[in-house]
């Protein structure tokens, strides 16, 4: 049974989404990157991937706790194909409209080259047929997915995930393998996997996953259920540390550069994780502490610092920066202590902006250099190695790694200490926490100060690495991106922050620096926004959630009344509507 109205509605949604992706120029830009040499480009992947996802949901129907819908293969495929057809019709109509009306003056991306890129470079009449055919196929595939067995679906997921990742991570693979003949064999000259290597990876993934089926899952549950001090956990941590030591040696300059960037964000993420994840204080001006660290270091170490210029050694400057950060933490923390959660967010955002505006202003230019910034910040003096700065990324990585380890240790210990428990209590309910004798004032200030100190470490390292500080490295975007890192990883979870930083900063790119996928540059903030929304809607506890936090977020689902209220309520509403 195919619900025509649903097909029509979701098909239109898919059409609108696809036209949107085309109109912002994303398909065109992403198509410059080939994933599998002759057949798949990244732009097309996003374009038809959107359709496939929507078709999947169209065919699967509403899933809730009460009933798990069974999808028949024929119905599913037909529904999906229908969605594809509607979407293609909408997109084609849109393209024809763009072709006949010139809107370039208002929408610079809606030009002929956009039409070309959406129609497989075939132009309006023929290309539209191709577009329609591809959409129907993608839709049908999406509709077929929910009808397959769980096992098959999982294999498809694994295969596409691995093929796409290996294709996207070409730079990393090439850097590690270092053998040109192997690389030439796997990747096509214009970038992207060769068809046969993609097939080989697919076969390998299927065989391996079938061979070791279920073992990975049982392994993760074992890790999860293991004691914090068990041998398993310790050996995992040892493995991670070993990887952190060996990896930089294998990688080239550019990737180490990226690694430094990622670890700076891990550092800031860990700091913000204490404030937001553990203590539950939403700080949107976290970049201010980063700026305090960076500018503090710059003023104290650079010979070009305008007025105050003690030209200290980086290690001597560090404790001073630490004290400055503590003061900054107190200064921001005290006035906001009595504020409600959401006021706090806006006020900290205001603080962050005030810091940036002041650093940039003519008033404080005699100290901080204004828009000129402060240049010639020396690197970090390391015994036997000399000055380690941005010019020696393969050594600087170790420095950032050490600080990341320190910060991870601090947050790990804090989390399980008395302070950590009082943070958890405060996050849950401030009044109750106060009533059972927790000084929320002290707990809040401690969270702010710890967070500030960790961020100032990151700032000090950033200054030494880049060798110059300018105000535009410290705008509000940075705060938001750190927040996204923490949320995507999982609020309150230390491994989550690490994963979040690698995925977002490493792959998509940081606020000012490109990630592995340089094509994303223009669109990465769009992705950050979309990721934030989707995560909050679908998985608010993050990718690697902390156990405690995810329980808090799903609390209402556990208590039965709320569960009944939520789910049956929706079911009834839907039935009444249709």
């Amino acid at each position, binding site marked *: 049974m195919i619900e025509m109205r649903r097909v029509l509605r979701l098909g239109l949604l898919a059409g609108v989404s696809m036209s949107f992706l085309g109109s912002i120029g994303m398909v065109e830009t992403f198509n410059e990157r080939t994933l599998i040499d002759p057949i798949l480009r990244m732009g097309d992947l996003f374009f038809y991937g959107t359709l496939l996802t929507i078709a999947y949901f169209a065919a699967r129907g509403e899933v809730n706790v009460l009933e798990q819908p069974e999808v028949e293969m024929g119905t599913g495929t037909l529904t999906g194909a229908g969605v594809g057809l509607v979407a293609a019709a909408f997109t084609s109509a849109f393209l024809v409209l763009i072709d006949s009306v010139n809107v370039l003056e208002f929408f610079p991306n809606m030009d002929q080259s956009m039409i070309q890129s959406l129609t497989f470079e075939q132009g309006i009449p023929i290309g539209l047929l191709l577009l329609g055919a591809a959409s129907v196929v993608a839709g049908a595939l999406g509709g077929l997915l929910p009808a397959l067995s769980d096992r098959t679906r999982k294999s498809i997921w694994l295969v596409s995930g691995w093929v796409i990742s290996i294709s996207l991570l070409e730079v990393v693979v090439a850097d590690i393998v270092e053998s040109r003949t192997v690389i030439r064999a796997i990747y096509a000259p214009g970038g992207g996997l060769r068809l046969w290597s993609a097939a080989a990876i697919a076969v390998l993934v299927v065989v391996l996953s079938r061979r070791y089926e279920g073992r990975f899952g049982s392994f993760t549950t074992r890790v999860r259920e293991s004691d914090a001090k068990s041998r398993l956990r310790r050996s995992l941590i040892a493995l991670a540390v070993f990887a952190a030591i060996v990896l930089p040696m294998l990688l080239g300059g550019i990737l180490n550069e990226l690694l430094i960037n990622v670890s700076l964000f891990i550092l800031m993420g860990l700091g913000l994780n204490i404030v937001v994840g553990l203590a539950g204080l939403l700080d949107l001006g976290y970049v201010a502490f980063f700026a305090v660290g960076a500018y503090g270091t710059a003023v104290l170490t650079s010979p070009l610092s305008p007025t105050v210029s003690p030209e200290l050694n980086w290690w001597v400057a560090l404790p001073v920066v630490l004290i400055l950060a503590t003061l900054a933490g107190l200064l921001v923390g005290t006035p906001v202590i009595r504020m409600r959660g959401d*006021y706090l*967010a806006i*006020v900290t955002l*205001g603080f962050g902006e005030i810091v940036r505006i002041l650093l940039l*202003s003519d008033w404080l230019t005699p100290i901080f250099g204004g828009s000129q910034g402060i240049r010639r910040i020396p690197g970090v003096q390391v015994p036997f190695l000399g000055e380690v700065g941005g010019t020696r990324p393969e050594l600087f990585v170790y420095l950032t790694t050490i600080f990341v380890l320190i910060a991870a240790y601090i947050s790990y210990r804090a989390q399980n200490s008395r302070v950590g428990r009082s943070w958890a209590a405060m996050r849950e309910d401030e009044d109750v926490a106060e009533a059972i004798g927790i000084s929320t004032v002290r707990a809040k200030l401690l969270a702010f100060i710890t967070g500030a100190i960790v961020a100032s470490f990151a700032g000090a390292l950033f200054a030494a690495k880049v060798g110059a500080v300018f105000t535009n490295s410290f705008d509000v975007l940075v705060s938001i991106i750190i927040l996204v890192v923490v949320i995507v990883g999982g609020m309150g979870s230390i491994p989550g922050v690490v994963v979040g930083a690698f995925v977002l900063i490493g792959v998509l790119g940081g606020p000012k620096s490109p990630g592995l996928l340089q094509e994303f540059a*223009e669109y990465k903030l*769009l992705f950050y926004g979309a990721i934030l*929304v989707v995560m*909050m809607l679908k998985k608010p506890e993050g990718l690697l959630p902390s156990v405690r936090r995810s329980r808090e977020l799903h609390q209402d689902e556990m208590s039965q009344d709320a569960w009944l209220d939520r789910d049956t309520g929706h079911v009834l509403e839907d039935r009444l509507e249709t």
Partner: protein
Amino acid sequence: MLPRQVAANSTTTTSRTRRFRFNWVDGFLWFIRVAAIITIVVGLTGTIQNFMAGQGPSVEQWRDLFVSSISTGAMYGLVALGYSMVYGVLGFINFAHGEVFMAGIMVGWIAATIMFQNGLWDGNPFLALAIVLVVAMVTSTLIAVLTEKIAYRPLRGSPRLIPLITSIGVSFFLQYAFAGLFGVGLQTYPPPPGILSRDINVFGVPIEGTKLLVILVAILAMIALWYFVAKTKTGRAMRAVAEDKEIAGLMGINVDRTIITTFAVGGAMAGVGGLLWALLFRNVQFITGFLPGIKAFTAAVLGGIGNLPGAMLGGVLLGLFEGMGPLLVLDGLGIPAVSQLKDAVAFSALILVLVFRPSGLLGERLGSEERA
């Protein structure tokens, strides 16, 4: 006997340290309050001395500054209404409201440019402006309603920070979606029609036409909104939902529809604000909504969040603070290039309001759920 004594001792010490800590925070807050007042007084005296000495801006310049601050403030006030209404009804800060405002300006720009090209803009300026107004209002309303349906509705009843974080995501998504659609450059509205760029005498005071129009439109919009919220059935439903969603639902009010209406009306007001922005500043870019959005929120807090006349008052006051504050206070302190610090003054105003009077000037009006 001994254990009891120990227990008694420990309670006294904890209570003492407790009181001490509280005093410490209070002391710091008092320090901020006093420091703020001293700064303002010293700055004002400095400026007055300068003025007496014949330095600094002349009387006419002060007057123009005052008028333009009020008109900017009126625009903030209109955007602030959206924050205030959503906060009153749902209890969260809709961070993306600034982008709703920007969307109106951006799409209005298309209408304005087309009308400029076919001559309507100069031929019949008021009709043209009315069309821009309608376009901006429709766009903003549409976007506000869509974000509510897609992003916020599924989150009802989740912990309070979740919708706030979602709205930050929506805000970034909208910003960069518009950057992708319209390009990242600064788009400029056509120059205002001749009638508006002339000065108009109001009680002997010459006021630039656009600014007068801005103030008039803001007043009209405010009256319309007041009528809507206070006198119509939907407005009453809205107030009921703000008071208590559950009971309102039991009384036969369609809560979902009322919330959508709230977003729509907030969006429409942001659209009106968008027209005013276009009249005042004449340019628009994808990040245009960000700072005014935060400032409008500041205005809403300043007037007392959830309180509609408060939002308008807060907007006008914030406009005055940020427009006059730098020249009036900071200049007197001998700080160079004060106009750079405009935004810093606006944010400081927010912090000071929350330190001095967290419930705003006219007091908060929230439902019982949100007050906790």
